[in-house]
């Protein structure tokens, strides 16, 4: 198999706070290959957005990073800021949850694009304009609206504009942090279809960060489940959904309310405070299968099936 486009090895991101370091990402490893989509799911405070920020190199100053985050052979964590800036927006692009707050209300849509293109490439204004028109047209935005301002567009159109902007430089890796969370379910479906098409057309890799397991099932090849700063399970989507190993993944899958739900299921307790995470397995205070060893010993990251990893002392029992 070819080298991955993005690989994390024991990646740690610790924020500095008054109460001590927050272990937002605490030693995770994964690999994302060309043309693949990796879904990272987790609940509020699991560290999934921090992971996205680390890939873009936009963690707040004073944040401590450890381990490796390798993009095409370069460790992003140690790359000089200048080089990182050249990558960012060109080879690695990002789309955010709320497109309204990410577009400058005082700039027309066309100016947003021209700025992005000129920041990375020396091309004529005409060439940049042509590329802008093509990028927007591919997202179904009429050329007649180039001179409009962000507030003149609907939510779905804004998100399509954001995607068009992220793609205008033909990135190799697209990081999408909850790209459809602020959208209605029909528009969400439209955006997901667009992302699918793009992936197929350009062999782009997609790192999709979401709390919505339904979306992961529909568009991802691989999924990583985050809990309290750690990946607790990682593997091919089919394996993780059909034969989950970690009790947290099982609980999360059961708690989704979908059209075929027969009963309401929830996970007891609350996610831990990441300044003082629990000893042993971080999920043990909420785990229905907890044993003594879980309270004292950190479980190992074991490959239970080809490419299917889990962080649980009793993983074998759940196979």
């Amino acid at each position, binding site marked *: 198999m070819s080298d991955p486009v993005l690989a994390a090895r024991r990646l740690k991101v610790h924020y500095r706070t008054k109460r001590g370091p927050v272990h937002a990402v605490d030693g995770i490893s994964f690999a994302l290959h060309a043309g693949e989509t990796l879904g990272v799911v987790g609940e509020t405070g699991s560290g999934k957005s921090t992971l996205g920020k680390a890939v873009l190199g936009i963690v707040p100053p004073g944040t401590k990073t450890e381990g490796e985050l390798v993009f095409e052979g370069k460790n992003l964590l140690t790359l000089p800021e200048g080089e990182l800036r050249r990558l960012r927006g060109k080879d690695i692009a990002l789309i955010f949850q709320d497109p309204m707050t990410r577009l400058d209300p005082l700039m027309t849509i066309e100016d947003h694009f021209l700025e992005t293109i000129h920041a990375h490439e020396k091309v004529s204004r005409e060439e940049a304009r042509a590329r802008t028109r093509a990028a927007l047209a591919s997202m179904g935005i009429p050329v007649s609206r180039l001179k409009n301002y962000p507030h003149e567009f609907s939510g779905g159109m804004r998100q399509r504009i954001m995607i068009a902007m992220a793609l205008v430089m033909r990135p190799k890796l697209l990081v999408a942090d909850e790209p459809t969370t602020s959208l*209605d379910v*029909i528009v969400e*479906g439209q955006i997901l279809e667009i992302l699918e098409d793009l992936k197929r057309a350009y062999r782009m890799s997609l790192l999709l960060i979401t*709390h919505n397991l339904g979306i992961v*099932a529909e568009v991802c090849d691989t999924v990583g489940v985050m809990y309290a700063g750690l990946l607790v399970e990682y593997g091919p989507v089919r394996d993780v*959904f*059909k034969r989950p190993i970690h009790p947290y993944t099982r609980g999360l899958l059961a708690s989704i309310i979908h059209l075929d739900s027969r009963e309401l299921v*929830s996970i007891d307790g609350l996610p831990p405070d990441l300044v003082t995470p629990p000893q042993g397995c971080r999920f043990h205070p909420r785990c229905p299968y907890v044993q003594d060893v879980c309270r004292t010993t950190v479980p190992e990251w074991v490959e239970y099936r080809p490419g299917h990893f889990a962080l649980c002392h009793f993983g074998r029992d759940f196979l």
Partner: protein
Amino acid sequence: MTGPILEVDGLVKYFPVKIPAVQRVLIREPPVVHAVEDVSFSLSPGEIFGIVGESGCGKTTLGRTVLRLVEPNDGRIVFDGVDITHLREPDLRTIRRSMQIIFQDPHAALNPAMTIGESIADPLLIHGLSTEEEAKAKALEIMTEVGLSPAEQLYTKYPADVSGGQKQRAVIARAMILRPKLIVADEPVAMLDMSIRAKILELMLELKEKYGLTYIFITHDLATAKFICDRIAIMYLGRIVEVGDSSDIYREPKHPYTQALLGAIPVPDPDRPRAKTLPKGEVPDAIHPPSGCRFHPRCPVATPTCGWEPRDFLELLDQRALDDAIRVRDEHALGPRDRVRITGDTLRIRSMDPGLTRRERRFLLALVALGSLAVGSLHALVGIGTLASGLAALFGFDALARSDPVRSGLVERESGRVREYVRGILQSAPEALTKAVRNVAVAGSEVLVEFAPSSDPGLRTVDGREVRCVLY
């Protein structure tokens, strides 16, 4: 059987739109947001009634108008046998004890300067129902009941110190403490993590059983609604498009919009990646809602009578313009997009002489500016028919058209050409749109595309439920 606890009849709510003062003077009918339009339903005691729709469909406004947190423009609200539509504030206050609301965002619904316990006890004090000690005792009691335990300890915590789930429990406790009959729950679990949603829904169901509550459950999530609602109303752009027993609606959705909503929900099963047929586009602007059936521009099965209108044709032009080559051809024939005007059911396209280049037009402009041109001498001077017609189109020289046979012939030829082109474009349109065009005619230098007038189908009873669609 007892009578309904709530009856809503023909409820209407418009919100005025802010426009500049000058425009306000000029426009006879100021624009409004059509948030709720002619909504009627009634609730039996103990029922959970779901109001489901996308953002901007008016579901939240409807919920608030029912409680008169928002004043209706028209219609009637009868709560527990009392017409509260025009009830004055002091009387309304007494009734409000029986009707409470749970807001979507628990982080914003609690006063950050009050402890959890104070917030929960506050309604008793506001309504002058208890002394402070009694209020505290009752608050502690209800806190235990909604799962905020140990209550004594949490009573003195501030909202910032507790989790989202606990905040939502506090909001529910605050709504419950007055022992209401009706609770409007506006997206009560949308802001919560998946793993705790079920807990909050279970709590709501428990409380309902115990106290015989009636809920209006407002949500965008059809899966959650299916789980807890007895009856469901699907809203689209201010109107109910389908309403009935939830089991019926989920088993066999009738309205194409309901079908689309159900089909769009992602299923957490990698073995079932469905080939979705999503409706195109988004919910249109509620200031200028589509005529006829509000869903017609997005509807996959729309018929010519569903309300196709001139701006659907403009939409079609915009879609065509996504392909650069087609855009150039369209603009060449029809002129720039702003040459197209809408009056009533008619689309008017100003014909343009494509034979006239910009340089030639500028040359003519210069001549006119020099003041050396009389209409009569123009023809002789330039000597080219197309130029004359171009100039006429440019400056609206109607006099020229009337006095000059060459010119009027040209206008006819040009208009005929545009008319043919319009027919061609229509062939690339949805069949329903084409059929909704009644006539393509020429009037002077304009091509008129006339559309059949549309009508709203209204809610009709089909298989024990009501549906607003011409298919039934």
